[in-house]
């Protein structure tokens, strides 16, 4: 157990408090999983609808343990040269040009091809050494001396092949580079993977991870989140607003508003110096909450019902 690695993450209640003071209100379930991830040294696969704070969880975690956050954003076509490492071709070429003359000296007096080759061999693989290695996020996370937090964001956007590439990193915390050998993590990082569920991930990947599903929060929890993010908003307003958002989520919408949208809405209401959630104000600011014209129309049609729900 590596509790000593991340002493901040050795107790569930302490985690909840630390996260809260960092501005992230988390449920016991989330805190439990973070605790287990630190203790079992396993990556956490976070799933859930967009905007419930999956990425934020990893960022906050980095803040709480006070280690650097290394982030890898996934997209279709992401490959190892972008994720693991790449050789610095330019530098290699430049150096071969510059060292041409030295090369002449080295080979000076060598008779025949075999002898020249032998001399060259004596210098080993100078051009394939760490000096010419460009670390990409995964390798970088392995190289952090005191561990760190590795965030692999939106893994479901990456190709299927990329998942297989991750397996070695996730289960053994090492990266194999054929020219150099295997590079082991100096100190195992905390790994978070996020997924929006756009496709099924492979079983092999799932098996290596602890699984955390973050749903939309309850009214109370969301009210706490909004209150901590937008402290300027009056408590009564916060409650109304959160109840309104929850009522909207129960409608059949193209995209239900996420927590981040609730927070944005709360912020804009503060900017507008609103003291009370009334119909015209809602109508004017609905576009902060809903991102599709159809959704806005649906919500406007149901406005009296939603307002009643907000009034509680």
């Amino acid at each position, binding site marked *: 157990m590596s509790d000593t690695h991340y002493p901040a993450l050795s107790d*569930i209640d302490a985690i909840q408090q630390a996260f809260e003071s960092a501005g992230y209100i988390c449920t*016991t379930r989330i805190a439990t999983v973070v605790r287990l991830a630190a*203790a*079992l040294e396993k990556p956490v696969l976070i799933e859930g609808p967009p905007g419930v704070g999956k990425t934020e969880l990893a960022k906050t975690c980095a803040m709480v343990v006070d280690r650097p956050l290394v982030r890898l954003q996934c997209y279709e076509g992401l490959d190892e040269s972008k994720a693991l490492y790449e050789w610095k071709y330019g530098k290699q070429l430049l150096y071969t040009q510059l060292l041409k003359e030295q090369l002449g000296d080295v080979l000076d007096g060598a008779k025949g091809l075999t002898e020249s080759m032998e001399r060259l061999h004596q210098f080993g693989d100078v051009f394939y050494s760490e000096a010419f290695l460009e670390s990409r996020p995964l390798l970088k996370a392995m190289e952090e001396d005191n561990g760190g937090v590795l965030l692999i964001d939106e893994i479901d956007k990456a190709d299927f092949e990329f998942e297989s590439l991750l397996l070695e990193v996730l289960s053994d915390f090492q990266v194999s580079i054929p020219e150099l050998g295997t590079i082991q993590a100096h100190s195992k990082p905390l790994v978070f993977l996020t997924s929006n569920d756009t496709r099924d991930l492979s*079983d092999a990947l799932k098996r290596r991870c602890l699984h955390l*599903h973050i749903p939309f929060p309850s009214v109370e929890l969301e009210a706490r989140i909004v209150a901590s993010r937008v402290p300027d908003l009056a408590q009564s307003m916060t409650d109304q607003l959160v109840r309104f958002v929850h009522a909207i989520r129960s409608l059949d919408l193209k995209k239900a508003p996420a927590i981040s949208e609730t927070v944005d809405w709360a912020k804009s209401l503060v900017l507008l110096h609103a003291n009370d959630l009334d119909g015209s104000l809602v109508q004017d600011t609905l576009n902060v909450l809903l991102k599709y014209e159809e959704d806005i129309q649906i919500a406007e049609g149901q406005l009296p019902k939603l307002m009643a729900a907000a009034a509680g």
Partner: protein
Amino acid sequence: MSIDSPQTARAATSSDQLLAFVQYLRGKKIPVSPADTLDAIEVAELVGYQNRSLLKNGLAAALAKSRHELSVFESAFDDYFQPIPERPLASVQSDIQPDGSPTDAPEQAPHTDPVAQGEDPLDGLRGNSLFDALESRDESALSVAIETAAAEAKVEEISLFTQRGQYVRKILDALGDEALRDAAIEFEQSEPAAFEAVQALREQLRERVRDRVERAYLIHASAATEDLLDESLSKLKLGNVDHSQMARLKRLMDRMARKLAARHGRRRRRYRRGKLHVGETVRRAIPTDGIPFNPRWRKIERKRPQIMAICDVSGSVAAYAKFLLMFLYALQDVLPRTRSFAFSAALGEVSDLFATLPVEEAIERVNFKYGGATDYGRALQDFSELALAEVNSATTVIVLGDARNNQADPRLDLLGEIKARARQLIWLNPESTRLWGTGDSEMLLVKRHCHLAKECNNLNQLERIIDKLLSDKR
């Protein structure tokens, strides 16, 4: 036994329980690997068994790997780790005391003493450990006895639903229920009150044993039974599937569709890289002194197959049409542009119905709108007018029907035209191959005008055909 400290003993039984729970989860179709099990044990040690919700959250993180599995896990956890209802002895005794004091343990021995109502016929049974445990409701003694008997009866070997009665009998025998039964038979005529009492106790015992067997069945066998049902269902003629099996069939179909979608979705990506793009590679090599460090490959454009399904919805074939359409629409991930047409007398496009309505309802509508006496000639004519222009080298046309045309002209010329334009023309016939060409069946003629003609009347055959179609090898 005394060597083990109480803690290690507890830990051992707890991890045993955890293992049994893992078995139970597997029975609920949550795939738990041995590695997951080890994780779960480690998790349980970390969070401890004291706090139920903590344990639940922790185990969920290790064992449930998707949202669906999470909901199954949560209900399974609640079912399995039910807080055991405490039945303290004291309250039980207070129930009994009004009847007379002799139920207290120390007074069992003097059974010769006449009780207030005269000789108690049950005294003959006292001393029988099973009877005593039942009468005094000694929970721990009873559970131990049942567990021992269950182990003796090898209840964990139960494999079928129908074996439950048999195992209940075996366990009861091992418990020594026979003595009680004999006593009951003896009392039946002479002592009705004692008979009632013994029978009541036996019924309690039977109930507990039944629970025990039920649990064993859930843990060890329900998965096997489910598999058996699934397997037999996928071989059953689709026309014979009745309402009660529909839900299961739908589930099975979705699972097959998911599997096919995963397999073929993947393959489509894998073979995308084509030949070297020489021009671009040379251009890219300019900054590196002509050394092609960064080659560029051409991409192979793979057309997704488009499917047009033409289904006979007349009485005899309607059920099969329904399943074909259900299957195709379950595959929407890999076959996004499926168009469907239904005919009996006339033909019409029904894609919109399927896009907007739940499958079952759409089928009803289709049957209502296009039902009537089958006419393949007219249907093909209608199809040609409606959609032939859009049939191209990426289109696979599937016709589902028995090719029984009531002696009318089947218009094979139109079929030939479709074949010439389409990538593939597949005819699925729910009738067995032996019946092709008998009576008014035009199947033997039809067959010549298709790339592929197959018998298709159960889920397995359907899966195989769709699999072939997706792999797109002619």
